[in-house]
């Protein structure tokens, strides 16, 4: 068994990664001091300190841990320095920070209301709060107030805003929202033809999902195949740095598109509100992870696969001792290999389909390490009280029903759900783009032209938000969207137009294999005629 050194829940070495831990600081969790390093999120530091229960559910007061680790599921919300409902997986530690769980008495870990989980339905069936304690008015007011407290929505802020709030107005040709592979590529390709570009990402780093991809990528050498995802992020960032007309704003969260004006909030020495006027907008906001229905799927220890990758590969924190992986797509298979590289055991991979979902070569990599892959199997339930202590899996018959008597217990202390992603499309809805449900590409996606322009002229999409695929395709889509945006603004001349057609052809060729077949079927349903002329 490969050995990797751990100390205080943190990896001390890794075959591929080097973790630079900055200054050691102390944060306070429900009053208790916790060691952390600058650059870590609150959730990561708490996890390293062995804390698994981050909140309690509203009604039943069931324990909740983190799930996504990228700010999309809200299971990790706590009160931070007096401000309620802060996502601790997106908040970076600062010396002396006061963090409190906001649901449960006295705290989320030992919540006395946990008894509700067993009795609440008997006395207060769903909807009963509309009928019980409704009069007299003082009683209703009193009960409402107490119930609000118990649900854990947090208390009104005790702290007043102490920082300096600035304001900036910016005019650009092309605004790119999201600095993952799709967004970076769009910024480079619009920028290289001379367009004035602003690239905004809510993280303090560029790269999006790439920053946790320690494996070498597929594709062709031209698409940087054989290079690790983490290095591709760096290469793209260097290309951006060379372009003076591309302004990169990190820790900048875009909250709204109001016709061609965009509102964003930038953190920094001075927090500020940005009002961005952009002639073209490329939305490259990526995707979030789906979950799966099974008993106790909300138990701390049931995590999104990407969440575990973030914890392990970005912050160097050990997710557990032995994991169970649900889903054998590339994400599940790669995560399994990465867990073993970090010295974490994997009990098994379960897959509901009769065959492995990802690339055979990824499966062979983990199979030869002795990790079983159970196809036509599913997870029935997670075991444990406050966190995962095991799981029950079962065979599935031809009708996808569990086979009686085939149940089996798997010993594990965490479960990774790797059953796919859904596009992060909220901004597109808000901007008024026409959307459509296309299961082949991961859910609700915008209609777009072959140049990735949506039904709102001047708003483009690139990467997972346009349909779940992978990084190489995201880079190629970013290239198409970026060049089209630049050329329709008059930049680049014939050269740009020629490259645009090449870029479209490249992507078609890339998708021509059997793995691209489903994508192409999906695209047929959401690509509209190319009425946007150049």
């Amino acid at each position: 068994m490969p050995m990797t050194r751990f100390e205080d829940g943190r990896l001390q070495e890794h075959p591929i990664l080097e973790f630079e831990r900055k200054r050691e600081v102390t944060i306070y969790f429900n009053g208790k001091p916790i060691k952390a390093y600058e650059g870590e999120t609150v959730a990561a530091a708490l996890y390293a300190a062995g804390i698994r229960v981050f909140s309690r559910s509203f009604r039943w007061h069931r324990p909740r841990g983190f799930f996504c680790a990228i700010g999309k599921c809200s299971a990790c919300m706590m009160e931070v320095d007096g401000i309620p409902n802060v996502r601790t997986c997106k908040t970076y530690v600062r010396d002396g920070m006061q963090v409190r769980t906001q649901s449960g008495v006295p705290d989320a870990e030992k919540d006395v209301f946990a008894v509700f989980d067993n009795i609440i339905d008997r006395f207060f069936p769903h909807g009963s709060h509309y009928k019980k304690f409704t009069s007299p008015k003082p009683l209703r007011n009193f009960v409402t107030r107490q119930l609000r407290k118990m649900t854990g929505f947090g208390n009104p802020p005790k702290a007043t805003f102490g920082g300096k709030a600035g304001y900036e107005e910016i005019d650009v040709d092309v605004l790119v929202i999201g600095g993952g592979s799709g967004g970076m590529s769009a910024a480079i390709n619009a920028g290289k033809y001379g367009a004035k570009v602003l690239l905004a990402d809510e993280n303090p780093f560029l790269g999006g999902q790439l920053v946790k991809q320690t494996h070498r990528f597929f594709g062709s050498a031209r698409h940087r195949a054989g290079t690790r995802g983490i290095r591709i992020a760096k290469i793209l960032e260097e290309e951006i740095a060379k372009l003076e007309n591309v302004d990169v704003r990190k820790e900048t969260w875009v909250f709204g598109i109001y016709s061609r004006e965009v509102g964003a909030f930038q953190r920094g020495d001075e927090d500020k509100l940005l009002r961005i006027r952009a002639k073209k907008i490329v939305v490259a906001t990526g995707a979030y992870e789906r979950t799966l229905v099974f008993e106790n799927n909300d138990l701390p220890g049931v995590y999104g696969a990407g969440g575990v990758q973030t914890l392990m590969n970005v912050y160097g924190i050990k997710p557990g001792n032995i994991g169970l992986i649900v889903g054998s797509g590339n994400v599940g298979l790669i995560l399994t290999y990465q867990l073993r590289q970090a010295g974490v055991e994997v009990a098994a991979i379960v897959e509901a389909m009769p065959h492995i979902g990802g690339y055979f070569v990824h499966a062979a990599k983990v199979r030869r390490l002795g990790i079983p892959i159970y196809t036509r199997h599913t997870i029935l339930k997670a075991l444990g009280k406050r966190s995962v202590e095991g799981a029950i899996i079962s065979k599935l018959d031809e009708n996808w029903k569990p086979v009686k008597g085939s149940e089996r217990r798997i010993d594990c202390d965490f479960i990774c759900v790797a059953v796919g992603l859904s596009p992060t499309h909220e901004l597109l809805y808000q901007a008024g783009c026409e959307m459509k449900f296309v299961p082949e590409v991961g859910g609700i996606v915008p209609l777009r032209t072959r140049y990735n322009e949506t039904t709102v002229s001047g708003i483009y999409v690139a990467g997972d938000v346009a349909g779940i695929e992978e990084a190489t395709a995201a880079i190629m889509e970013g290239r198409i969207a970026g060049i089209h945006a630049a050329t329709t603004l008059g930049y680049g001349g014939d050269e740009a137009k020629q490259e645009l057609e090449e870029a479209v052809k490249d992507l078609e060729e890339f998708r021509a294999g059997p793995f691209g077949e489903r994508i192409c079927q999906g695209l047929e349903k959401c690509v509209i005629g190319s009425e946007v002329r150049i």
Partner: protein
Amino acid sequence: MKYLERGYLEKDELPPFPSKERLRKKSVAYIECPQPIPCSPCYEACPADAIKMENINDPPEVDYEKCTGCMKCIRVCPGLAIFMLRLRNGGIGEVTLQYEFLPWLKKGDRVRLLNRKGEIVGEGVVNWVLPPERNDHTSLVRVEMPAELIFEVRAVKPVEVRK
């Protein structure tokens, strides 16, 4: 495609073996990558034109006579699907594989030999390594083993864990 139900190849699904004569001459690339996936760095890396691939989605096929054993392909394969095979005198064989775990293996280390399912099938000795820092953290490890195992052994683990 039965191999997609199991996650490993059975005998009848393996690519053709190079001849004994070829295996004795010098090491040869043996590629276990049967599924059409959009991937081609092995093909692009090969200076001897020994890897056949019609398009990026076509599985690679090695011409064992053209392969010079230069190891350019095995250095970059993201699927860890390439193995360099060789037969030596005295019933000894060698398999070179990509290795990305701690502790890094060194020349002289004894290793457990694992087959495609992860079962231990014997013990071998590392007789050469390309250190991880020379290949962006993918070490290449050449392991000496009984000749009859070179078409079976596809992973290794250190025998004793060094501190």
